[in-house]
């Protein structure tokens, strides 16, 4: 692990250099996550064995991010594409990356059923409490009181529900062999450890593996660097970091 952390100021080897600098906004948590994911893929030496499915929304900006096969799908649909691909190509390590809208709203049905069936794919949902590509609308993950363009007076839990807890829900229906966790980009050591487990559980246990990652969105939060980290800390209180697997591994 320390080996990869030491390289934080360099770029992962599996990056597609031609797609850099990336199209992500300054301060975006998704590009931070993708960098850590790249380091872990290097570390596990699986660049040649990996296939990635991504959604639309901000995740589509990763369509050529890495030097391995990537397919950009529709909102919430990278999970069923990954399920169909893995079923047809069992030796590949198959990942899906979505935002919290793709995972917990429009694509929740597919996410839950992939977990329920224990499809051996690794799913990453990046939670920034909003719909970012479309300009900062309320998401299921928006925190009560959070101001967005579709909750201008603050999210009212009476109408829109409280903050949606994805990993906690998935835990209820998943197999004991599934890996389920939540990380935050504020803690890169823990984030890398959990990314690694999310991939290793697919490889070693042939099981569904799920990681939610808390990520800042300064553009839509309209926050400065320090304000972004303050809001991320608030999110970490609402969405506890940690592993939620049923059996200890």
């Amino acid at each position, binding site marked *: 692990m320390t080996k990869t952390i030491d390289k934080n100021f360099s770029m992962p080897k599996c990056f597609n250099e031609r797609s850099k600098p990336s199209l992500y906004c300054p301060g975006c948590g998704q590009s931070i996550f993708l960098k850590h994911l790249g380091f872990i893929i290097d570390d596990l030496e699986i660049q*040649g064995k990996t296939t990635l499915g991504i959604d639309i929304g901000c995740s589509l900006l990763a*369509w050529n991010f890495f*030097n391995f096969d*990537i397919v*950009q799908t529709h909102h919430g*649909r990278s999970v069923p594409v*990954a399920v*169909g*691909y893995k079923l047809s190509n069992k030796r590949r390590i198959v990942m899906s990356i979505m935002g919290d809208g793709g995972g917990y709203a429009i694509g929740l*049905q597919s996410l839950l059923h992939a977990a329920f069936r224990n499809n051996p794919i690794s799913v990453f949902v990046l939670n920034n409490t909003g719909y970012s590509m479309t300009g900062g609308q309320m998401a299921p993950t928006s925190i009560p009181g959070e101001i967005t363009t579709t909750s201008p007076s603050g999210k009212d839990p009476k109408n829109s529900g409280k903050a949606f807890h994805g990993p906690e829900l998935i835990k209820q229906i998943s197999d004991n062999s599934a890996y389920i966790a939540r990380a935050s980009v504020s803690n890169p050591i823990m984030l890398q450890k959990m990314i690694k487990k999310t991939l290793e559980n697919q490889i070693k246990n042939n099981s569904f593996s799920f990681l939610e990652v808390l990520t800042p969105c300064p553009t839509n939060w309209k926050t400065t660097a320090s304000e972004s980290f303050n809001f991320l800390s608030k999110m970490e209180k609402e969405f506890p970091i940690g592993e939620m697997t049923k059996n200890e591994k």
Partner: protein
Amino acid sequence: MIDGGYLEKLSYITGNEAAVLGAINGDAECFFGYPITPATEILEGWIKKAEENNNLNYLQTEDEIAAGFAVIGALLAGKKAFTATAGIGHVLMQDPISMAENERLPFVGIIAQRGGPSTGTVIYSQQELNLASYGGNGDGLRIVYSASSVSEVYYLSQKIFSIAWKYRFPTFLLTDGYLAKQRVNTKLEKYLKPFPSSKILREMKDKPTHLRNCYGSEIEFANILKRNIADYKSLINKVSESESYKASDSKYLIIAHGSVASAAKDSVDILRNSNVKAGLLRPITIRPLDSRNIRRLALKAEKVFIIESAFEQFARMIIFKVPEIANKTVKIYKPAEGFTPDEIASLVNEKI
């Protein structure tokens, strides 16, 4: 691959059984679907076959959207994958199909048409013609076949895989509940050498495949659409097909497809027996239409009858291709209801 002896035993089959056998003979390897009448027996029949044959894969998904996207996942891995659906399931399926149109993926679907809008009826219609042909957002390009007998369901269920993989456009076979559920003695003798599939995500570390359906500029995307349209235009003459029956000397030309064409074929004989020079033109491809043959025969005829179990969906397609026939065309439609040969014969007799 199924051997001849095996097929002989199964020759008394339904349209949905013919679809499963045809797909297997077309080298299909993977099925994803969600139960919906009247297409369900394709899902059931495939699973039964998959339990006997380890090379066949399947998943009953949570909905039609997931079924379609899982088909896409499987074909990205180079597998000949398909789905079967109907009605409102077919509506949901447009989400993955539009992705397949954008990324030129060889998506294959069998659509057993039922009545609509909405849940409609569970049995029969020809009302999914527009949806199957033009259901996507944007100028989607697809290939759509319409079968008019169980043996043709068998034949075309093989063919759609080769067409999809050869030309890389989503390809569909339209049937209907009558065709899907009727059990008839069927010759399963036609065999096509399947066009091979290949990995679309090629798993090359140095030259990774990056597929997207979203573009940053109008010009960049427009160039891709122009290329796709040019590719589609160049396949029209190779793919479009139609059958004509006693049409070359006909004064009264019936144009119909699917089950209606099957009834119309008998009505041509009924009309000919009473000295009415009727003929039938049956498009086998709904999209692209065999416009050359339609034009050639329709312009010659004194009157044209376009008959369908939908409200002018088929008629609009035909008249758009041969606008000169508009004034001499009688449009006969019964949305979501079938026609008998006698009925078609008397409807034609009334108008001549």
